[in-house]
């Protein structure tokens, strides 16, 4: 197990409520974890706990079996994007250069190559000499991602990396996340408000509400279309459907069209049509 959260709890000094309440989970190498939840649910707090930006009230986080709070140097193995922040009076390249120095890199040639590499990954190589204060929000987001990608980290912690990106940018980042996890074996924790964005990329989804983990599982879109028909038409049959009493259960929307066509052709009265969504979808819509 690469990362293990053990009953992590955080109560901020200015508050009496738990920003994070007994959070526990395990994360393996090559796994992409999608962290979702509404604003103030505890997603960023969790990421900040992991990166030592805030101190835990109780609980432990283990990285490669070592307690992270007692081995803080290990945190430097994480690539982090939490609220993309920069020294805005420096240009993109200078910002990255300072971070590489902080990573212990001193060879000028190596620094230049690494800057070129990460800026190419996020599509900003032509803007490396532009001052960050002149960057658009989307460009800042890309540069933030470049900061996280410096020096091939084993764990990537990305807080809302898709926010502010256009369609092309979102696709670029999502593809990058999948590649880094599947081809390079990196563990990636990334948060977003949009479940549809997260579910495309993640192996597992963690849903947090008011600091409490309420869902932690592989995402299975259990969406089912249920067509309730008149009891007198119980003989109705169709391929790839499931029959439960007076209901026909269909998984795919395309199948639903076929079934509906058949029902109408056979003149069977329809009592009701319902969509039964997965428990995660229900939770998400409940926001």
């Amino acid at each position, binding site marked *: 197990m690469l990362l293990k959260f053990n009953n992590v709890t955080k109560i*901020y*000094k200015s508050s009496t409520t738990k920003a994070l309440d007994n959070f526990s989970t395990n994360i393996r190498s090559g796994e992409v974890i999608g962290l979702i939840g509404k604003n103030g649910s505890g997603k960023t707090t969790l990421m*900040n706990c992991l*990166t*030592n*930006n*805030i*101190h835990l009230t109780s609980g432990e986080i283990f990285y490669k079996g070592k307690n992270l709070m007692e081995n*803080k*140097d290990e*945190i*430097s193995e*994480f690539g*982090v994007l*939490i*609220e993309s*922040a*920069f*020294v*805005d*009076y*420096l240009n993109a390249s*200078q910002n990255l250069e*300072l*971070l590489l*120095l*902080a*990573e*212990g890199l*001193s060879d000028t040639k190596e620094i230049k190559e690494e800057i070129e590499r990460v800026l190419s990954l996020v599509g900003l190589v032509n803007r490396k000499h532009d001052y960050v204060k002149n960057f658009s929000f989307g460009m800042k987001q890309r540069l933030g991602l470049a*900061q996280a990608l410096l020096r091939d980290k084993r764990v990537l912690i990305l807080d809302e990396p898709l926010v502010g990106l256009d369609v092309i940018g979102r696709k670029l980042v999502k593809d990058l996340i999948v590649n880094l996890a599947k081809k390079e074996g990196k563990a990636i924790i990334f948060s977003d408000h949009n479940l549809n964005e997260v579910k495309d990329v993640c192996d597992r989804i963690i849903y947090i509400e008011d600091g409490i983990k309420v869902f932690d599982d592989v995402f299975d879109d259990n969406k089912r279309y249920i067509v309730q028909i008149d009891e007198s038409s119980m003989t109705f049959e169709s391929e790839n459907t499931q029959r439960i009493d007076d209901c026909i259960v269909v998984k795919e929307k395309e199948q639903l069209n076929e079934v509906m066509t058949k029902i109408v052709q056979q003149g069977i009265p329809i009592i009701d049509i319902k969509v039964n969504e997965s428990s995660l979808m229900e939770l998400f819509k409940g926001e």
Partner: protein
Amino acid sequence: MVNFHTVYKIEWKKIIKRRELIAFFTMIAIPLLYSLGAYFESSIIVFNSDEKEYAGSFVVNMLIFGKMLFIYFLIAALFATKSLGGEIENRSILLYTQRIPNRAKIYRAKLISMYSAIISIIIFYSIISLILYYVFVLHREDIATKQFLRADEFLNLLYIGVGITFLYLFVISFSMMLSTFLKSNTATILFCLLFIIFTFIAEFPGLKYISFEYYLGELIEMNFTSSFELTKVFLIYVTLILVMTIASNRIGIHLFKRRDL
């Protein structure tokens, strides 16, 4: 794990691009305007001393002018509060705390780089003042001499120069400590208020002994009858300012290590 020198180098690279540092260089306007005023015999420049000016006294007098114009202490305070508090506010500090988990190292590197910047500026300012003295002021033979230093005043001038430099370092330390728990602008305002209070305290008979401004004021007055008295006042001043600087640094590091970012 990166060493202290690397963290210092990072902070230095940031500092040299800061606007506050550029603002410090406007200090040069003080000796420049004074020396040009003297050269052109401007009526604005009034020379009251019984004795003629010499190079060393001119340089120290320019440092005293800089001190009297409080604005450079305000810039020093802004320099310090923006360096730490500003980075906490815009979250860019997170980029470094994650890569350099030892927060005390970051804090110390910020301090030392700012100390180096301030000392470099004071040295540069003194050299420029010296050059301006010989280029412009010396033309006024009625107020200036070619003499570089006077033995009887050397110690006093040295103590004033060192005293003012130490005061800038204290301002950096104290303001940066305030910015560990206050917003950078609030920290700067609070520093200004406290500085003004200490300046006023220096005028109160009973309380003046707790104010560093009193001792520095005594050194600047140059009314000592013996070098023993002069050194005694200087040592009290230096002890007081060092204790406050070290205390500010310790408290600042402690607060920065403990706070949530």
